[in-house]
Structure formats: C-alpha cells, structure tokens
C-alpha cells in the first residue's frame, strides 16, 4: 500500500481547503442540534396553524413531544445525510481522472489501492467525526429539553447509522471509479441510492438492505423488536467491503 499516508494527508488537506469538511460539520451539527429543537417546536407550530382559519382542514392533534419524538426526528433528519455523503464524494476520483490529475500522481511509486483507500479512509474518518458530533449534539439537546436518553441504545443506533453512511460512501467511490466523468459518477451514486431505497421497500428484502437497516434503526429508537438488525448490518457491512473491492479491481485495470 505504498503511498497511503501521503494520499491521506493530501485528502485531509483537500477536505479542508475545498470547504467540504465545513459543509459536513455544519450539516451533521444541524441534524444533531436541530432535531430535538424541531421536535420541541412542532406542537407549537401546529397549534399556531390550528388557531388560524384552516379553510375546512381537519384539526390535527399533536401529542406532547418527548425523548422518543426527538430521537425519531433525529433519525428522520439523519436519513438525508446519505445523499450529502454521496454528493461530497462522488467526484473524488472521477474529477481527478477527467481533469487528468490522477495520472500524474499514479505514475509515481504508489499503488492504486493506496490511492483508493485514502479516498475512502479520510471521508470515512470525517463521517465518523460528523456522526459523533451529530449524536453528541442530539444527546445533549434532547437531555436538556426532554430528559434522559438511553445512551447505550442511542450509541448502537448511531453506530448503525454510521455503517449506512459508510455503505453510501463506498457506493459513491465505486461510481467515481467506474464513471468517466463527474456527472456520470453522480448518476451512478444517486441512481444507486434510489435503487437501494426501492429495494429497502420491497417486502422480504427490506430487512437486508442498507435502506432497510436505516428503517430498522427507527425501530431500535422506538424500542420495537429488531430481529433483523444484525442481518441488515452484516449485509450492509459486506456490501460496503464488496463495493470497495470492486472499485479497487476496476481501478487497478483502468487505463488513465
């Protein structure tokens, strides 16, 4: 894996210079801090609407929010982050290939595997940081606004959410390797996201897809039975590794 650390250093610098790290941090922090706030404010907002002339609309009764609502809101908001992960990483390799930057680095005494793994490792590390930031923010605000949270369950839920994000990171890197340009890589990433979402809605298959795992986390938060969560996590983990191996195989044979 010659060149892994130099590539990692460059990737980290790139994440900072191109403001991707900032975007990631702000988005995760907003999800973490905003979710309990939205849960808290929702009844107020709804009752304010109810006082207005609703023009024949039915009255909606909203129960008082608690820890459960705050965490469900967090889960709902977190479910949008895979798209952000895809958008931030889908051009990572495709852009460097199309701009002819990658060939200049890959003719040096480095391995293509090191190049790809650095592209995966640094965003994965930053996504882990983002997840921790988001979870900490949510935990703090939920505790302040609604009371104590089951920390162990919440930690497990976040570990699974992080695994889902890793899967989408691997998917976007795979798209970035196989596509000739950024637009087509984005097509692969977003198309893949759509396919996984559809597969996650299919009965029988839903529990064994990353999208199904994401839904399963909601059950974990609600305290429902989560028999298939382990299988979902295993499939998501294996799919992540498989996508990275496939990307590496393609990249190692690719002509640049």
């Amino acid at each position, binding site marked *: 894996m*010659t*060149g892994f650390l*130099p*590539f990692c*250093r*460059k990737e980290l*610098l*790139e994440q900072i*210079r*191109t403001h991707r790290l900032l975007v990631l941090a702000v988005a995760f922090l907003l999800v973490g801090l905003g979710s309990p706030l939205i849960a808290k404010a929702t009844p107020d907002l709804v009752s304010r609407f109810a006082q207005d002339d609703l023009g024949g609309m039915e009255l909606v009764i909203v129960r008082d929010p608690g820890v459960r609502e705050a965490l469900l809101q967090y889960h709902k908001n977190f479910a949008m982050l895979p798209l952000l992960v895809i958008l931030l990483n889908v051009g990572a390799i495709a852009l460097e290939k199309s*701009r*002819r*930057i990658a*060939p*200049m*680095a*890959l*003719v*040096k*005494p*480095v*391995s293509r595997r090191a190049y790809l793994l650095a592209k995966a490792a640094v965003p994965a590390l930053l996504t882990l940081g983002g997840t921790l930031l988001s979870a900490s923010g949510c935990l703090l605000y939920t505790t302040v606004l609604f009371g104590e949270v089951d920390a162990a369950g919440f930690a497990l839920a976040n570990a699974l959410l992080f695994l889902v994000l890793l899967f989408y990171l691997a998917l976007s890197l795979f798209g970035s390797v196989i596509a000739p340009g950024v637009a087509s890589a984005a097509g692969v990433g977003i198309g893949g996201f759509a396919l996984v979402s559809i597969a996650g809605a299919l009965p029988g298959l839903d529990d064994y897809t990353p999208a199904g795992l994401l839904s399963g986390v909601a059950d974990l938060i609600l305290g429902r039975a989560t028999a298939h969560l382990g299988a979902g996590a295993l499939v998501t983990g294996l799919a992540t590794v498989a996508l990275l191996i496939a990307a590496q195989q393609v990249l190692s044979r690719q*002509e*640049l």
Partner: protein
Amino acid sequence: MSLALETCALTRCFGEVQAVEQLDLAVHGPGVFGFLGANGAGKTTTIRMLVGLLRPTSGELRLLDQSPETNALLVRRRLGYLPQDPAFHPWMSGEEYLLHIGDLFGLARKEARRRAHELLERCGLEKPAWRRRVAGWSGGMKQRLGIAQALMNRPELIILDEPVSALDPLGRIDVLELVESLGREVTVFMSSHILADIERVCEEVAILDHGKLLVHEKTASLKRRAVRPTIELVVRGDTVALAKALATAPWVERLEPLEAPAEGTSGLRLKVRELAEAQLALPKAVVEHGLGLVSMSPATPSLEDVFISLIDRNSAVPTTEEVGA
C-alpha cells in the same frame, strides 16, 4: 552508454485503429532524444504506454533495464514524467504540490521543501507565485510546474510529452536550455511536433507517422542523409531562361523561384543531386545567360525539411547510397 528505454514491436490499437504499430526503439543515455511526429502520429499513446497509463495491445517495453510491468514501483522511483497538459489540484499552491509529490516519493519534509524550492527556481517560477493557488496560474506556469514535479525525485529517465507547447518564445528557450542541461546528466525522452525545438536540443531523433516509425537516427546524420542539398541562387536580371536551361541539367533534381531580395534581382532555389557539380556548373550557366551573379549559397537543411521530406508520401526517403554522402 546505458540503455534507458527499449520497445520491441510495441503496438496499441483502439478498436480498429492502430495508434502505434510495431514500434522498435532503443534509446541510450545520457542525452536528449527527440520523439517527433505530426499531431495524431501516436506520440502521446506511446508515451502513455511507456509510463504505464495505457496497456500495449502487443509488444514489449523496458525502462532502465527493467520491465515496468513486473517492477513497476522500482521503475517509477527512477522515472520522471510530464504529460502533454499537466493538471494540478487547483486548491493547492505550486509549492504544496511539489511537497505532495515529494511525499509520494518518500522524501523527508525538509529535503522535499529544499528540493521543491530549488526546482521552482530552476524552472523559472518566481517566488511570489510559489504559494499562490495553481488555479490562478497561466498555462506556461503550469507547464513549468509540471517539469518541476517530473524532476522532484532526481530521475534517471525523464519522459516529457510536448514540454514547451504551452510556453511563449522566451519560455520555450528557458525550458529547452533546462532540457539541454538535464540531457548532460540523464536521459530525456522528449516528444514534440515543433521541429525547431527538437533540432535545437536533441542529438538523436525518431520520427513517427500514423503510428509507424519512419526513422530513428542521429539528428545530424539524418539531416545530411534524408534531404538533398539545396542551393539558393540570386542573380541580377531575369531567371526565366536560366531556369528553363537548368531544368534539363542532370545534376538538378528540382528548382523553384526564390523571392527576389532586391529590386532588379531574381532568384532560384535548386535541390541538387551533386552539390560539388552544381557549384561548378551554376556560375558558368549564369554567365552564359548574361546574368550577373549576386550570391550562390548552399542552404543547410533543417529538421523541418527532413520531416516534410519523410512525411510526404509521394517522396521516397533517399538512401545513403543514393545521396552519395
């Protein structure tokens, strides 16, 4: 002289198109080797195969006595490469980019910084630009940075694909001088379609046309061998009758009018089979036609003449025996 680069029946096809066909090359170093060809001749495809970015369809290649396929890392450690249009991370400064390249070669930070500064200076990049983002750099500056990154590891073999194509005339002179000085220590394999540049710095040249190797020879001997000697004749008076007479002379291969250098004069450019015979016969013919001889000078063929003569499909390359050199 060591063998720096060798290809054997190197071939690359893109579908039906044969971009490079059965290329046999042996380049010894040190020195500057010119790889010449018109646009689309197959130069960049060959170079991309040499540096491992493209796989040959068939054939073999060796760099620095090693197979780049089986000893990729070892070969790349001793190789410098400048692509045709060098591209950089736009958010990086020139100095940062060289430090990154140094990092890829495993240079210690301090050594990499020292080497980066040395190369930035050597490649003619001014100090205020070093820490500016590459995104705002001109094409010429990027080309110079591209050369600097190719030299970061003190390579034994440097492969430059059109290294002066984006440079202005002064920049070209600077970079060609740099290439020339590098050629005293290591082997430089340089492609170009600018014949004057190749002629200026390369002792040896290969010419590629439609993927096929036309010629591989020392530049000086190629110029002597491949082009008929030429004489430029200027006389006082009209050359019409003289031209008619010379057209039938056995030692004249071709003649064409030459732009008159002064009023009342006219001129002819003659491609001759035998220079010595022509130098004896021409003054006599001028006098016989009642003209005044202003000048008669043998023109030195340029690499451009050689190139045109070789590429021109209608003209066969004269052999050494034919020319009588």
